[in-house]
């Protein structure tokens, strides 16, 4: 490239304050567009997905391989000791097991009565691996390694270990962003299984530290809801499929208005050690249609 061409190029360069103004306007317009419309930047997602996701995939695979090896070494000694203790426990448990088997019959009968069985085991699911987490410390969303190419779409529900993890809020061809229910900006309409009371499950950064999520707006006029009750997703939610387990009630407080109650729920999913999740390949819209 000749110096003349170079100089010409420099002449076109814009002063920094105009560049600042320009980029600011661009950001504001983008924010307005994404906030007020349903527009999601498909092409940008696609490009970013092809550049970033393969790296994240690789690094997280290497990382998990190493962490597994390290854990193995550390655990070996513990395991030996544990083995002896466990042998003793087996003896105790065999006795208990007989007892529980009897309870199971009863449980099955009750479940049939409640018509809960297989409500969400009937949906098609696909496994996905978490490859990256939110880079900031304010929110707890994460990226999984499957996207539109694997048949996923936004608003699909994500579960793990039988409990609700969250839903897909943004998607690219080979990645999807999952907003966890423990996230500070997440709200899920839930239902207490025992009494069918509707409540609102709201994530909170403050409560997350104690491993719980908050709930509010529980109208429990008959005082039926107790600590330990199961909370599932309600059937009035427009994003979440009904009857997916959220967690168990941990604490109930009467609100100052004396009408509603709020408190905390222990989630069914261990969000700290989440590595693989299942995505239900049906959205609520499709099911109701």
């Amino acid at each position, binding site marked *: 490239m000749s110096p003349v061409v170079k100089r010409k190029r420099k002449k076109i*360069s814009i002063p*920094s304050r105009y*560049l*600042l103004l320009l*980029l*600011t306007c*661009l*950001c*504001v*317009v*983008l*924010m307005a*567009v*994404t*906030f007020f419309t349903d527009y999601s*930047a498909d092409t*940008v*997602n696609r490009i*970013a997905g092809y*550049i*970033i996701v393969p*790296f*994240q995939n690789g*690094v*997280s695979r290497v*990382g998990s391989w190493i*962490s597994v090896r390290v854990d193995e070494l550390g655990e070996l000694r513990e395991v030996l000791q544990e083995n002896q203790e466990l042998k003793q426990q087996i003896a105790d448990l065999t006795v208990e097991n007989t007892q529980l088997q009897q309870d199971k019959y009863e449980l099955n009968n009750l479940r049939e009565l409640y018509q809960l069985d297989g409500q969400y085991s009937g949906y098609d699911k696909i496994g996905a691996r978490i*490859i*990256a*987490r*939110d*880079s*900031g*410390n*304010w*929110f707890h*969303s994460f*990226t999984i390694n499957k996207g539109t190419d694997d048949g996923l779409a936004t608003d699909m529900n994500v579960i793990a270990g039988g409990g609700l993890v969250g839903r897909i809020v*943004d998607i690219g061809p080979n*990645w999807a*962003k999952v907003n966890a229910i423990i996230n*500070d*900006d997440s709200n899920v309409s839930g239902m207490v299984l025992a009494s069918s009371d509707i409540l609102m499950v709201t994530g*909170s*950064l*403050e409560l*997350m*530290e104690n491993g719980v999520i908050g709930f509010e707006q529980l109208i429990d006029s008959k005082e039926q809801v107790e600590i330990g009750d199961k909370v599932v997703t309600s059937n009035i939610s427009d994003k979440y499929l009904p009857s997916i387990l959220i967690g168990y009630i941990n604490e109930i407080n009467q609100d100052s208005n004396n009408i509603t109650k709020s408190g905390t729920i222990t989630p069914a999913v261990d969000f700290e050690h989440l590595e693989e999740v299942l995505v239900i390949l049906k959205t609520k819209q499709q099911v109701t249609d």
Partner: protein
Amino acid sequence: MRRNIILFFVILVSFVLQTTFFQVLSFGGISPNLLIIVTASYGFMFDKKYGMVVGFICGFLMDIFYGGVLGFYALVYLYIGAANGAFHQMFYQDDIKLPIALITASDFVYSFVCYVLLFLLRGRFDIGYYFRSTIVPEIVYTVFVTVFLYPCILMLNRSVGDVERGDPKNV
């Protein structure tokens, strides 16, 4: 040109490390903010304009993958990059005090803006709690990582012979 290629890889590596590696190495759920380090360093190492562009790219990347609305983080990072660019005149390569101070300040401003716009406006008023549990730990961890990461960024760009010294003789 070479500077831009290096920049591309620095941003890519920082983003990937921040979302994967450092999430595993997080202490109490807090991980360092590498993108702030990159944005701030490029701001005071080169100039305002460079800081702005780097900030915009870093923020936009955050927006694509983790932002609620497109452009929010881009805007925050953009201004942090620009502000750091204003300190280019005071920057000397051998001095590590200014970079550390600037990165600390940048991370604080970033966290504080995030708190105000994303939490305070939604009625989460317990500012003391968020300071203790998120903002301060993040700053400490970020500064700790800066001590190792910043010399790498500096060295990468020095080997290109591209870092403009901020001393008055050259200006």
